[in-house]
């Protein structure tokens, strides 16, 4: 049995803000990445690459803050009607997404450093290279950024499908509790 939404505990406002801000940033950055890689060598492409890197570092920093928040704030409990395998699947996919929140920007950062383009955040703050400039290493690292990004995209698709299934099939409050509060609250 499902409780009416006003009785169901919602995510904290900060959690909701993190979720939607990062969802937007990650989707934009992923789309930009897909678009820019096939462009011919040009000033336009150079700009887009740098914006992509700045966005990636911002996602990395916000993800670290979000993880800290998540570890110190318990999310609302899942509906009691959910079978154990779904709870397990939910847990695993959330852990996987957090792993990718770090893996995707870090592999991109490493590749950029190895390729000889250290990252200067917003063109102002130089970030350290945690791998050396190395032609062979750059070639080795390149697919990992791609694999991590597609790995994240895959889990995100499952995550969205599950959220929609909860909303439209199970008709529970799993999706609603992550939506920004409407006026009636």
């Amino acid at each position: 049995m499902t409780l009416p939404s006003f009785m169901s505990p919602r995510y904290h406002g900060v959690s909701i803000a993190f979720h939607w801000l990062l969802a937007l940033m990650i989707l934009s950055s992923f789309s930009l990445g897909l678009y820019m890689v096939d462009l011919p060598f040009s000033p336009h492409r150079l700009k887009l690459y740098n914006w992509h890197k700045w966005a990636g570092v911002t996602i990395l920093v916000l993800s670290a803050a979000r993880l800290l928040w998540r570890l110190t704030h318990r999310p609302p409990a899942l509906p009691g009607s959910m079978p154990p395998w779904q709870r397990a699947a939910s847990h695993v996919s959330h852990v996987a997404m957090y792993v990718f929140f770090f893996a995707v920007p870090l592999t991109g950062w490493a590749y950029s450093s190895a390729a000889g383009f250290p990252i200067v955040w917003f063109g102002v703050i130089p970030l350290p290279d945690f791998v050396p400039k190395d032609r062979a290493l750059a070639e080795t690292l390149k697919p990992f950024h791609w694999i991590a990004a597609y790995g994240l995209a895959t889990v995100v698709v499952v995550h969205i499908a599950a959220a929609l299934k909860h909303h439209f099939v199970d008709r529970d409050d799993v999706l609603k509790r992550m939506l920004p509060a409407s006026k009636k609250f």
Partner: protein
Amino acid sequence: MLKKVLFGAAVVMLSGGAFAQQKLVPAESEISFVSKQLGVPVSGKFNKFDAEVSFDPKKPDAAKVNFTVDLLSADIGNAETETELKKPGWFNSAKIPAATFQSSAVKSLGGGKFEFTGKLAIKGVSQNVMVPVTVTQAAGKTRAVGTFNLKRLDFKIGDGDWNDVSLVANEVVVNIKLALTGIPPL
């Protein structure tokens, strides 16, 4: 006796005088550069270069340096950018592979510090540059280290599509580290 003198003269002629006695040691020398793209320092070096040097630190007025850098040997650690550099908009090195420096005046500032002034030619454009050089000597080798800035657009490097200096800075830092043999003592 006469034979000996003739032989000595022949050796001097064959060796081409001071130029041939002073040699660059390429394996211990480096020409590198740093340019900035949106604040990102992108560094590279040239793998092939050579110098003809006639330099007595005590007689800087008579010094002569001819330097040639093979622009096709630019190594920035990234194949795609290196391919781009050879195109007409950048180095045009497929057509004009050599960048040259010919000294016109050398001034001693004392303490092993010198100012090498001369003509730097890249991509068919010549500009006067002054390169401050610090010279040290140890174990029969002379090391000369210098840094100078050039403005890439002065040499039409990255003109056209890439002339926006807010994207690729106009200033390029060139670092020179040379090891030479046969230079007279400081």
